[in-house]
């Protein structure tokens, strides 16, 4: 029979009462997003320009949920060499309804084309929609975080070690250069360096492209194995200069972007929203123009990237991060690369619409990665913007950089949650970019 001595009963009451006085453990999820670690297995991201269609992932997948279609293509010899064939990816799809998130595909990928992104909010009402095609998989790549550094006592992988050493040397050099520059130049400098820098980095980026086909080389994306050191090296190398080099924010008179306003009104937005958004668009444009003028005034005009409007040059590309990402090939021009200010000047042609202010992450251009890649063929300054760099940047300026603003606005207006809208806008952006590439570059399939 219950020996109701009572002590245990009272103790229990004490425990619950004590808990009541303490803060709850609840996390209010949709309001407060979880802070997921870098290794989180949320969704698999594909950086398709890294994919060589080796089929390893599809073969190792325990669930058979990766579908790959590809075709062979003859590549014209560069200079007197033999014509070569290469595989071009037509379709890469992962059926997340089938996927068991074991990560074997990411593990076996020898070319760092697959990565884990912590994004997890992609539930669907229809199961077919869980099959993510290439463009969706590509958009996840923007949210791939840099990997955590390893615990003390861990053996660094060889490639990371060598990359780290090279980077340290570069960083030391850069630091010295920065020191010199600071001594020589006025403190708000370097748009000059910045303006010329991307072009320099273009060549190195393309050169680095040659390296990407071997698994050991640091891939041109910071999401590759050595990204964390890359980021830190970037910070170490460029940190001092970027802080100083970032142009002060420009003051502009508030106004309204009539075109945007009209468009939004036509799209059925309320006057208030349309006005607010139009104002924002105006401010963005005005600021960009002012910055461009500043940059132009401060230095020789940048080798104006004659980019097509769609694939416009980046507004705020962290060249300081982009360059180390292109390691180790960029070692030849290290000082310049690392000393580049964080904010590259926008290309004049980029300023018109908010959509224009997107980075042409042209590293996806097959030429940029293929051994035969001709740096001049794809020669906009944006070429070096490794997608990962854009992703890194995304935290700060994601809307302007990598999201199709129009789609974004439309979806937000349609009542979709911010996160979904952003993801879809990213996808739209990626699609647009690819279309632009096909039309303009002609280098693709």
């Amino acid at each position: 029979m219950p020996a109701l001595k009572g002590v245990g009963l009272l103790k229990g009451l004490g425990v619950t009462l004590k808990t009541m006085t303490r803060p709850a453990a609840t996390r209010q999820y949709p309001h407060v997003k979880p802070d997921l670690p870098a290794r989180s297995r949320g969704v698999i991201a594909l950086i398709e320009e890294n994919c060589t269609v080796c089929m390893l992932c599809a073969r190792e997948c325990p669930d058979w949920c990766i579908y790959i279609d590809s075709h062979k293509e003859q590549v014209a010899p560069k200079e007197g060499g033999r014509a070569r064939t290469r595989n071009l990816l037509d379709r890469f799809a992962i059926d997340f309804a089938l996927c068991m998130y074991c990560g074997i595909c990411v593990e076996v990928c020898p070319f760092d084309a697959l990565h884990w992104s912590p994004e997890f909010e992609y539930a669907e009402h229809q199961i077919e929609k869980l099959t993510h095609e290439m463009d969706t998989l590509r958009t996840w790549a923007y949210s791939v975080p840099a990997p955590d550094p390893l615990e003390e006592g861990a053996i660094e992988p060889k490639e990371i070690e060598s990359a780290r050493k090279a980077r340290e040397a570069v960083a030391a050099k850069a630091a010295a250069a920065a020191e010199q520059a600071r001594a020589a130049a006025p403190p708000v400098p370097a748009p000059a360096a910045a303006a010329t820098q991307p072009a320099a980095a273009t060549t190195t980026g393309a050169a680095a492209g040659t390296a990407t086909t071997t698994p050991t080389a640091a891939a041109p994306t910071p999401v590759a194995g050595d990204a964390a050191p890359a980021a830190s090296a970037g910070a170490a190398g460029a940190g001092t200069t970027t802080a100083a080099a970032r142009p002060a924010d420009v003051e502009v008179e508030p106004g309204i972007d009539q075109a945007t306003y009209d468009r939004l009104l036509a799209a059925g937005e309320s006057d208030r929203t349309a006005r607010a958004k139009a104002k924002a668009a105006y401010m963005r444009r005005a600021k960009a123009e002012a910055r461009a003028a500043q940059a132009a005034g401060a230095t020789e005009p940048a080798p104006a990237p004659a980019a097509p409007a769609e694939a416009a040059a980046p507004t705020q590309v962290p060249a300081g991060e982009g360059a180390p990402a292109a390691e180790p090939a960029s070692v030849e021009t290290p000082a310049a690369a690392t000393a580049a200010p964080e904010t590259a000047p926008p290309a004049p042609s980029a300023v018109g619409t908010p959509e224009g202010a997107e980075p042409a992450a042209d590293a996806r251009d097959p030429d940029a990665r293929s051994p035969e890649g001709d740096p001049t063929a794809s020669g906009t300054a944006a070429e070096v913007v490794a997608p990962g760099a854009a992703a890194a940047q995304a935290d700060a300026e994601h809307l302007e950089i990598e999201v199709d603003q129009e789609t974004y606005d439309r979806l937000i207006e349609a009542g979709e949650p911010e996160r979904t809208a952003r993801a879809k806008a990213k996808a739209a952006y990626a699609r647009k970019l690819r279309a632009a590439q096909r039309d303009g570059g002609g280098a693709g399939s």
Partner: protein
Amino acid sequence: MDADALRDHLVAELGDAVEPEVSYGTLTVTVAPGEWRRVAELARRGPDLVCNFFDFLCGVDEEADGIAVVLHVYSTSHRHHLQIRTVVPRDGGHVPTVSDLWAGADWHERETAELFGVGFDGHPNLAKLLLPEEFEGFPLRKEFALLTREAKPWPGAKEPGE
């Protein structure tokens, strides 16, 4: 007893009836189906064996040789493992039950019966355990193909560029 001492002991007890093999530290004795019960009883009751702990009983498809039935028992007092193995024919193979020696063998024998098609004489209720009553075939035999893999072509079968 360690595996080698156990082997010597069993050989001394049973003579030619057992075919011992020590594999990665575990002693396996292969016996004829007719000896199955006797060896199991010895393992359970033998004063030097006292394998009171029932670990598992399972089948292994040995293709042409038949179906092997493997019984693994352990002694909590002597701390030794013993694996008893016998091979029965594919069609109508059967061995005496050991579920009266180890209560735990009940479910394992039912499982082995439904998955491999081995009979266990004297088992109180050899009904299907895991599979539905109307299921046909013995899924863990090699000739029973894994349907999920048959139904869908392997996406990795393509060559790059195809």
